């Protein structure tokens, strides 16, 4: 059951360059990945330059593709306002999983960050907030000790300083390489949110591609306001295991942002171009005040 679930999520994660629909169009071998972008949702191929100018949104189907943490931060925070928290925190190896440290080091090189979430304080249109950005390039932004601890500290800081929290979630779920310790991070982060909540502070979740598994079943579902980017994958279990259980095809929009909205688990779907002003507007409506201009 669960094993299939993870397998499916993982398989879908790896689908980026080999979406089934795209394959139907035939000859797509040897696409130079640095020059062209092929949409994992609709299969449309676009020039990388145009795709990037479009903030990594598919011009054809509006799929909001994954961003690195640096790209997200740059699109979200006011210039020069970001102060990072806990930048040097790194994971230990709770169950002595073979080569875990090595894997982490590779990821650190690749993503230019020590772990799968970057947290800190910033301003958005002048509104001060605590921000967390998960980067799916880092071990599919799975949640281990460091992700759990950094998110918990971010909420504790926000509770103490009466600040709203905005989390851009993306994750394959709990980090299996850390065993049951990773499972406990779901409870730990939810506890910190409970206290932030009791202190009357605002928490906005922005669901980005993909938000699944243990992160979906903890802090990603606990926002006062839950926003999703168009066409992103959001869900608890994997699509294929569900398909295998029910023995019939699932609709294309199953476990998308639109599916979440339809079923009552997201407040709104917001385009990338509108995100900053939407976040600022929500903070304003919750009586937070702008820092001086």
């Amino acid at each position, binding site marked *: 059951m*669960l*094993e299939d679930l993870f397998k499916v999520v993982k398989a879908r994660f790896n689908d980026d360059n080999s979406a089934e629909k795209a394959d139907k169009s035939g000859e797509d071998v040897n696409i130079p990945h640095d020059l062209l972008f092929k949409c994992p949702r609709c299969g449309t191929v676009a020039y990388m330059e145009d795709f990037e100018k479009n903030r990594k949104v598919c011009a054809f189907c509006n799929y909001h593709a994954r961003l690195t943490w640096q790209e997200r931060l740059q699109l979200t925070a006011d210039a020069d306002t970001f102060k990072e928290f806990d930048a040097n925190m790194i994971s230990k190896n709770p169950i002595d999983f073979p080569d875990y440290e090595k894997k982490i080091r590779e990821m650190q090189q690749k993503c230019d960050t020590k772990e799968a979430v970057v947290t800190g304080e910033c301003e958005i249109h002048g509104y001060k907030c605590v921000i967390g950005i998960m980067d799916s390039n880092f071990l599919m932004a799975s949640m281990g000790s460091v992700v759990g601890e950094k998110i918990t500290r971010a909420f504790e800081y926000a509770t103490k300083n009466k600040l709203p929290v905005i989390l851009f979630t993306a994750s394959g779920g*709990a980090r299996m390489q850390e065993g049951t310790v990773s499972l406990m991070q779901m*409870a730990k982060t939810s506890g910190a949110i409970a206290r932030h909540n009791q202190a009357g502070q605002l928490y906005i979740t922005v669901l980005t591609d993909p938000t699944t598994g243990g992160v979906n*079943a903890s802090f*990603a579902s606990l926002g006062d306001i839950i926003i999703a980017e168009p066409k992103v994958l959001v869900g*608890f279990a994997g699509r294929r295991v569900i398909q295998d259980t029910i023995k019939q095809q699932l609709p294309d929009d199953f476990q998308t942002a639109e599916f979440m909205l339809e079923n009552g*688990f997201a407040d709104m779907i917001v385009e990338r171009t509108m995100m900053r002003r939407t976040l600022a507007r929500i903070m304003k409506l919750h009586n937070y005040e702008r820092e001086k201009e």
Partner: protein
Amino acid sequence: MNKLTATERLSLIRHKNRPTVNDYIPAIFNNFLELHGDRYYGDDHAVLGGIATLNSVPVTILAQVKGRNIEENKRTNFSMPHPEGYRKALRLAKEAEKFHRPVICFVDTPGAFCGVEAEKRGQGEAIARNLMEFMTLRTPVITVILGEGGSGGALALAVGDELAMLENALYSVISPRGFASILWKDPGREKEACELMKITAEDLMDFGICDRIISEAMGGAQNDMTLTASNIGEYLSEAVARFSKTNIDIMLENRYNRFRKIGMFEE
């Protein structure tokens, strides 16, 4: 304490004669009154809820129910709850809070159910909500893992003041088979995964995740249900008495810190 390997324990907790919560409740409690439904959608038979007395003290019981035969398993969905099961548990926990009644959770699940309806009704949200709400529930919450503690589906009934495990119970982020399948792309390495994952009660004591180990009958709970039930009952009586005497604000601070301290990192 026995020296069974994790793999041996895995087969013990999946043994067809392993006692379930339906065996333990009449052996440990009196006057069990079952309560049904989440008040939003329906009644999930994978989660049993109700009020009973333990040494004449009323307590709320929330339990994941494994079936003892195929009929029971069909009814309880092999102990894999849907969102309404978690929401029923939360509703009854809130009712317990209102009347200052301790909550006792019995965990025994391979995991939360994965299906279309579960997704539509918000499986992730239901689990998340329980994690947050149980953290601040103003009444004692004690969890006992009877057999399988499978992932987030188990955790949703395990956020409380103390966690006890039966000596052969396991508590993991994913099944050993799933672990092998994903990390090594070879489900056949299930046994190896099981030994590596550190999921036995002793392992979890070392991590500070488990607080107590409850002895089973020699060779496993199935060999003497009455003895095992009596051990569980003895533990629960002591724990309920202890937490009922604790100041509630101190108890909530300790509950937060039980989870707050778990994590292995350096900076």
